[in-house]
């Protein structure tokens, strides 16, 4: 079986599953409750108003015709109309999606990086205190409600320390008439967070300097200290300059909807830093909760790999431990991690709903929760369908990537 045959069969196998998913959604939202319009008004509207809504939304037709129209609409990318204002749901979903995508990508990055680093550390020191505490941490993180972790981080870093923003995606904004430009309000520089940022930045630069000095076999005193202090000074000057110069030009032109990408496309480092600052807490929250799985996976994989002959051979050739682990052994864990990313994608989206609600992140999850509060059942259906299709598509893509990367699958 060649690659092409595999791809075609895999796609064909996905189709009945998507059909089933769509039917399940239809069953839950249109068939099971009887009449979504009645639910929407909680029986508090006149018969005419409800009939009018049914007519506009096409809910007055027999169920099998509704089902057929629903499927045909989906094929054209039409998710129906909102019960709230009869506007097309697909427009609202497409405008909310980039925010969720940005959150999903960044938190996956956090999850994989944290997971791999901790997993490698645990496997290196198998059955030691490190190993046990990392495993316990993995379980504890798994048992934490995402929104609780999010609120604790908000409380500590946004509200008490004021280092990061607590809510939203970008500084409080004004929409320009064309609706495409975000304008930032002018803020007075807040000294406390700026001073606080020096603690982590200082520690990081200190660590970098010490490693560099160790490599070069130089002494810390006095050269190292001078290096640290000068790094801090330069960083501070840059920060102050940016804070002084940019408030007048704080608008962001939205092209892709991913604010980090948009700000880079504009070539504005300040806007990039700003969008990262807003992205930071949500993606750390979601990423940490997801990292447990990756830690466990990397640990078990590395435990197996580190005993193999080629690792011993690499060590025997005198390679450094870091090169052996990250250059040789970790490559074997790449494919399982990729598979796990696919399997975790559904969990990721579920977590994104809670994270977005916690951080007022204007993505799909928040849209769904908003619609629930308005009892806007057609919009709920649209959002749920969209979630289902994305998950199916991502799983398909990961499977295809897998086949591409691992020739054994194609056999």
């Amino acid at each position: 079986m060649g690659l092409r045959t595999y791809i075609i069969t895999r796609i064909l196998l996905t189709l009945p599953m998507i059909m089933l998913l769509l039917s399940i959604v239809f069953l839950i939202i249109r068939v099971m409750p009887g009449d979504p319009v009645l639910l929407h008004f909680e029986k508090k509207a006149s018969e005419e108003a409800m009939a009018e809504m049914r007519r506009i939304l096409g809910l007055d037709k027999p169920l099998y015709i509704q089902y057929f129209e629903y499927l045909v609409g989906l094929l054209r990318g039409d998710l129906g109309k909102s019960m709230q204002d009869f506007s097309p749901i697909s427009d609202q979903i497409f405008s909310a999606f980039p925010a969720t995508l940005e959150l999903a990508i960044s938190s996956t990055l956090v999850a994989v990086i944290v997971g791999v680093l901790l997993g490698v550390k645990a496997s290196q020191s198998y059955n030691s205190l490190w190993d046990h505490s990392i495993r316990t941490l993995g379980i504890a993180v798994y048992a934490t409600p995402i929104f609780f972790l999010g609120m604790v981080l908000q409380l500590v870093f946004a509200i008490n320390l004021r280092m990061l923003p607590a809510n939203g995606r970008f500084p409080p904004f004004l929409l320009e008439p064309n609706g495409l430009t975000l304008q930032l309000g002018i803020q007075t520089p807040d000294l406390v967070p700026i001073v606080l940022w020096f603690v982590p930045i200082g520690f990081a630069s200190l660590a970098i300097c010490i490693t560099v000095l160790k490599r070069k076999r130089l002494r810390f005193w006095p050269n190292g200290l001078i290096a640290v202090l000068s790094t801090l000074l330069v960083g501070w000057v840059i920060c102050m300059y940016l804070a002084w110069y940019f408030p007048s030009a704080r608008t962001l032109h939205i092209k892709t909807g991913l604010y980090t990408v948009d700000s880079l496309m504009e070539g504005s480092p300040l806007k990039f830093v700003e969008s990262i600052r807003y992205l930071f807490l949500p993606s750390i929250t979601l990423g940490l909760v997801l990292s447990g799985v990756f830690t466990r996976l990397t640990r078990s994989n590395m435990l197996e790999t580190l005993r193999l002959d080629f690792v011993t051979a690499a060590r025997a050739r005198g390679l450094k431990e870091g090169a052996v682990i990250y250059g040789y052994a970790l490559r074997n864990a790449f494919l399982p991690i990729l598979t796990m990313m696919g399997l975790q994608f559904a969990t990721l989206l579920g977590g994104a709903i809670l994270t977005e609600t916690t951080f007022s992140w204007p993505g799909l999850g928040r849209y769904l929760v908003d619609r629930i509060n308005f009892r806007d059942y057609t919009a709920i259906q649209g959002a749920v369908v969209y979630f289902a299709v994305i998950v199916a598509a991502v799983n398909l893509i990961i499977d295809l990537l897998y086949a591409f990367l691992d020739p054994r699958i194609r056999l």
Partner: protein
Amino acid sequence: MIKTRKAILTRLIPSLTSLAKRGSAGWMVIIGLFISVTIISMTILGPWISPHDPTAKLVNPPPNPSPPSLDFPMGTNLLGQDMLSRVLSGGSIMLQVAFLSVLFCFIIGVPIGLLSSYAGGIVDKTFTLVMDSFYAFPGLVLAIAIAAMMGRGVVNMALSIAVVYVPSYFRIVRSQVLTIRELPYTEAARAAGAKGRTILLHYVLPNVVPSIVVVATVNFADAILTAAGLTFVGLGVGIDVPDWGWDLTKGRALLPSGAWWVITFPGLMIVLLALGFTFIGEGLSELLNPRLEQ
């Protein structure tokens, strides 16, 4: 009756001590059992041991929310309710939902799994496809959709969570049955002329039970987290019942004022409860699959 109770007790204590001898996995089960039994009994006793009525408003005169003090060791929330009393009895809804959902999963998932794997052919294929589609669905999204349509209530919430986890039961039962069916002792029973139903109920099912128990304990923790999540997005049970998830949800609005006590204590209780059951599940699965330990 008394005799059997005594017998259970005398068997339970040695089994706990033997668990302790099974290394870290045994200890995980013991710690998990300790945490969950403590929290469950605390929740049951809650109404009797809490210093104030958990739903009575303005127990504390304004200003509210007020930080922890001698009178209110966990502070009070915006409505002036005593957080300690709310924490003490706030697990009841979550525990009820989790127990019910595990029960529903058990009632639905296990028979379907047994039937499907034993019938084979087109029945098996259909069930597997349907279950796989449910499994591929983002769990929380599915639960939210169902809960939003069914309305508030403990049973409705439990049902919407159960739908998410039935596929895991189905999968584990199916894969176990497929393995056990080929084992020599089942074959021997078949050769001795046992009927399909006898084999299924007397030879296969008892050996599937341990793995179902592991799935059930892990799912219990998941169900608690999902129940908390449903409450957080506004699909919780109600207002007048003390509930950790509800307190967390309401506490979010108080965060900007720095009222850490309103979210910290209920949140920690949810973490502890989920942690307890995860510990039991993890430990049990390691004890039952010793080959995973290296």
